[in-house]
Structures are given as structure tokens and as C-alpha cells.
């Protein structure tokens, strides 16, 4: 058992080392990526995949590990992104100072909102967080166009971005920041999962009443999970901001908050690698599908076929329904599922992400 556990970390180290080396590699994967791994375009795409993988595992800390269904996670990405942008552009602070203030703001917002919203449990919490997220989205889109840039979003002030992060040639640096962000998220989530609070969180997911009977306060552990996940999300918002060079209101929409859930379930919620794989696959698919729909091959197709292809959300939403219906456990659950099909052993029980109510 200890050997098995150690092998997880070994896997993780190998994967991390391989990912870190990508900007040095000249390998090309025709059909998968537009150019070699060391080209800026591919690095940018992969960096977005890493950020989404990090956001996805931070969401899974709540959803898969604690059993909290939240639709307000995009809110904290928005807070990280917009607080930093506004402080840099309108208050004249430096980039890192702004990011630090933004993260501190996210902690306060997470404690305040979590304390209120966690008073309702299960599906009620999902609805309440969705409503709060919508209010923030409306504020971002039309609250104060001078501050947020409204629907256009807002580019970061040029002179605020360090020269090592500016320009196409420095894309590898951004890639490594995204890589470090994912590494930090994974370390935090796996670390918590192995700790005492993490065990209580999993127990909450499986049976909240039982935790209460043991004399522990479910509310506090849920709040802890919510706050940590939210701060990770806000940090992700800052990294995403650096990648894009500006703030975009898409992260505040309800579609983005729902997409985080799609990522986690796509990969397999509550599993060690599930959310990471799900986030990366989602980010890759949505970017490639957008690119694919602009290609000449697709433009030649009749409208009935081309229309849905131009809407990544349509294909991903549909894929999500299919996964939920037929492949509980997601992508990373597939091997175990196939093994179970060949053997007589059922893994259904192990894979259920826990009853929310």
C-alpha cells in the first residue's frame, strides 16, 4: 500500500518533468497541434490547458472531494482576474502587488460568501452560488464600463507587465507560470486530501450525518474546502490574465461556472487524475474546435453540419450528457470500468461521487 502511494508521487514527478520540458521539445504532432512543441502558438494553447487543469482540480476539491456542488467557482476566477487588472490599470499598483491584493480580496470574499451560502446544503447551495455569480457577472459586464471595460474586457497596461512575460518570444515563460500554478494546485489538493481535514471532507461527501454524530462540525470543514478552492481559483484567474494579456468577461458568465463542472465530470470527479485530465481535455477541445470551425475543410460543409461544429459548447455539452449517462467515472474511470467489464467485479460503488443530499 505504501509502495502504491509512493508510485503516485513518482508518476506525478515524471509527468511534471515531461510537462516542464515541453517548450524545449521540437517534436511535432501533426493533426493534434499546429506546430512543434516549442512554437509560441502551441505553448500558449498548452498553457491554457494547464491553467484549466488547475482550475478544474481546485473545483474538484469542493465537488469530488467534499461533495459540494457550487456554480460560483467562476466568480473567484473573475475576482482574481479583475481585481488585478483594475488595481494595475486604475490604481497604478505594480502587477504582483495587485495580484496579492486581489488574492487577499478573494479570501475575504470566499469566507463571507461561503459563510452565508453554506447555510443551505445540497442543491440549494448550487442555486445560491449561481445567483451570486450572476450578480457579479452583471456588475462586470455593465456595472462600470470605465473600470471593467464591459463586454470588451480590458487589456493590462503595457508597462505593468514585466518584460520577461511580454511578447510572443516569451510565451515559454508564461507556460512555466501556468505549469507552476497547476503544480501548486495539485500539491494543495492532494496534500489536503491526505490530511485530517481532507479525510473529514471525504466523509462529508459520503455521509454528512455520520460526521455530525462523530462530533465534528460539517459547516467548518465545508467552509475550509470552499475557501481553499476559491483562493486557488482566484490565483488561476491571475495566471489566466497573464496568458491572455487582459481581463475577459467570459470567466464571469454562468456558462464558465458550469463548464468547470463539465471538466471535472468529464475527467472523473474525486479521482486523483480525473479533474486534471478533464480540465486539460476540455481546454484543448474547446480551443481546437474553435480553430477547426474556422478551417477551410469545415467551411465547405453544409450548414446543418457546420453550425454545431462552430459551437464547442454544443459538442462538449452533449459529450458531457453522454459521459454522465454511460460512463460514470469519466475518462480516468474508463480503465477500471473496462477491467470490471471483463472481470465480474463491479466498481460502480467505488466510482459514485457521493450523494449530495
Amino acid at each position, binding site marked *: 500500500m505504501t509502495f502504491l502511494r509512493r508510485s503516485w508521487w513518482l508518476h506525478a514527478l515524471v509527468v511534471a518533468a515531461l510537462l516542464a520540458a515541453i517548450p524545449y521539445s521540437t517534436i511535432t504532432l501533426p493533426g493534434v497541434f499546429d506546430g512543434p512543441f516549442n512554437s509560441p502558438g502551441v505553448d500558449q494553447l498548452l498553457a491554457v490547458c494547464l491553467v484549466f487543469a488547475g482550475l478544474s482540480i481546485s473545483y474538484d476539491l469542493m465537488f469530488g472531494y467534499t461533495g459540494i456542488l457550487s456554480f460560483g467557482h467562476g466568480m473567484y476566477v473573475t475576482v482574481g482576474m479583475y481585481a488585478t487588472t483594475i488595481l494595475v490599470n486604475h490604481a497604478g499598483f505594480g502587477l504582483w502587488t495587485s495580484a496579492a491584493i486581489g488574492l487577499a480580496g478573494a479570501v475575504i470574499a470566499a469566507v463571507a460568501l461561503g459563510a452565508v451560502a453554506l447555510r443551505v446544503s445540497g442543491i440549494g447551495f448550487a442555486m445560491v452560488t*449561481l445567483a451570486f455569480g450572476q450578480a457579479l457577472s452583471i456588475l462586470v459586464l455593465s456595472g462600470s464600463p470605465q473600470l471593467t471595460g464591459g463586454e470588451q474586457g480590458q487589456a493590462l497596461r503595457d508597462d505593468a507587465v514585466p518584460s520577461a512575460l511580454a511578447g510572443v518570444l516569451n510565451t515559454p515563460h508564461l507556460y512555466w507560470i501556468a505549469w507552476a500554478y497547476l503544480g501548486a494546485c495539485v500539491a494543495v489538493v492532494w496534500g489536503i486530501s491526505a490530511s485530517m481535514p481532507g479525510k473529514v471532507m471525504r466523509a462529508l461527501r459520503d455521509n454528512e450525518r455520520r460526521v455530525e454524530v462523530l462530533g465534528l462540525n460539517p459547516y467548518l470543514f465545508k467552509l475550509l474546502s470552499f475557501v481553499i478552492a476559491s483562493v486557488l481559483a482566484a490565483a488561476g484567474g491571475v495566471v489566466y490574465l497573464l496568458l491572455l494579456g487582459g481581463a475577459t468577461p467570459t470567466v464571469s458568465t454562468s456558462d464558465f461556472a458550469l463548464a468547470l*463542472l463539465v471538466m471535472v465530470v468529464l475527467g472523473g470527479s474525486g479521482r486523483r487524475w480525473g479533474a486534471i485530465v478533464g480540465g486539460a481535455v476540455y481546454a484543448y477541445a474547446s480551443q481546437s474546435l474553435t480553430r477547426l470551425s474556422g478551417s477551410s475543410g469545415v467551411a465547405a460543409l453544409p450548414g446543418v453540419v457546420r453550425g454545431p461544429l462552430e459551437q464547442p459548447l454544443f459538442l462538449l455539452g452533449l459529450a458531457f450528457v453522454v459521459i454522465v449517462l454511460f460512463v460514470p467515472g469519466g475518462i480516468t474511470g474508463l480503465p477500471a470500468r473496462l477491467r470490471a467489464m471483463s472481470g465480474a467485479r463491479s466498481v460502480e460503488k467505488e466510482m459514485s461521487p457521493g450523494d449530495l443530499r
Partner: protein
Amino acid sequence: MTTVVLLTITGLGVAALYFLVASGLSLIFGLMDVLNFAHGAFVTIGGYVGWSVANAVGGTPGLVLSCVAAIAAGAGVATLTELVVIRPLYRRPLDQVLATVGLGLAIPAAIQAGWGGDARTWNVPAWLSGTVTVAGAHIPAIRFILIVVAIVVLIGLATFLARTRAGLVVRAGVENRDMVGALGIDVRIAFTGMFALGGAAAGLAGALDGVYQGSVSPGDGTSLLIFAFVVVVLGRMGSIVGTAVAAAVVGLVQQFANYVSANLGSLSVVILLAIVLLARRRNLVGRPA
């Protein structure tokens, strides 16, 4: 005074839309414990079907026909959703919710693929685009239609629940689903029926929302859905009168706050939600927590 009258009637008009969407959500949740995220998609489908019919027929008959078509489309899609997606997941309540989330993302995206992301203008008959003068305030006629329709639906649903045998099964199912099943009643038929009924109300809401705004766009349903969620939480799940009262409160608070400052409306609704949650000592279905 005229401003107060105008804001009150506008608020109640918006509340009527919220009620139409929230009543179905609330009953489906009360009966089946499924929070239906695809409900907004039903609204959008109703809106686009209604818009197409109104374009083809035109005038007042077109308006009536488009409402009927929207109701049929909403009910049809909802029934299909229940049979194909919800029923196979009967033993996995969380997955039911997740599947509806997927549909809620995919259906508006499909509509955007077919009809484009921009709003399509809905040509409303001349008599409906006029105003009615009440206590000196000029109020667009459509707002009265919304309020009247919502009241009719409220009375209809309340009568259905209180006076019919099917309504009795639904009310009993909200209280204790297993007991209803144990009495030998096939609850699954009630589930499908509830989805169809909720979908019909959502489709009607979609068409009326299109007439109210003078246009339809793919995101309409989702934005209505979010406020309908607030109404459902405030009004206690499974209670039709509670939903109606909550819808009226949310609509009025939103309109009056919007009058003070353009974006205060949505914010004040969310603050209202937070206050009620803090003050409330009972859970969503109204049983002691």
C-alpha cells in the same frame, strides 16, 4: 405616484415571467428532487418556436398560435428529456442534475448555431405595442397580458393540485415519494407528467418573454432561469403559492432597485436572497433543518 404605479406593474409583469419558469422548476424539484438546469433551454426553445410561428402567421392570430406552439414545444422537449435523460438515471439523483446541466449548455449552443447569436426581432401586433393609462402612468399593454396569464396559470395549477386525482398524487409525492409508490401508484407517470407541465409553462414563458422584450436570443432562457432559481429558493420548493409570492417580491424589488440605479436590480435580488438565507432557520423544502 405615476412612477410607483409604473414600477409596480412592470415589476409584477417581470414577476409573471419568473413565476411561469419557477413554478415548473419548483414542482419538479418538490416531486423528484431534480433541479432542472435544462429548464432555461425549454424557455429558449419556446421563445424561438413562438417567434417562428409569429413570423409565419403574423397579427393577433399569429400571437395566439405562437403561444400555443411554444407551450407544445416546451412540453414536448421536456417530456423527451424526462424519458431519455432523467429516467435512466433514476437511482443517481446527482447525475440527473448533471445531465440537465449538459443539456442546458448544449441546447442554447445548438440554437445559436441554427439562428445566430444575435437577437431576432419579434414583430408584435399594433394593439399590443401601445400603452394603457392607469392613474396617469402610461403602461405598455403587454405587461397586463403577462400578469393575467400568470394569474390564470397560478389558479389553474392550484386547482389542478387541490381538486384533481393527479394533483393529489403530485402533492402526496412531494410529501413522501416512496409512500406513494408503496400504495401501488406508478410515480414515474407523475414524473413525466410533471416535466411536461413544467416544460409547457417554460415554453409559454419563452414566447411571452420574446413578446415582452420584442426579440428572442439564445441566452434568454438562462438569464430567466437564474432569477427563477432565486424565486424557487425564496418560495420554498414544491409550494405553488409560495413560488407566486416569491416571484412577486423578486420582480418588485428588482424593478424598484433598478429605478434607483441601473444595475442595482440584480444585485438587490441577490442581497435579498442572502438576507433571507441568514434569517431562515429551516431548509429549502420548509422542514426544520
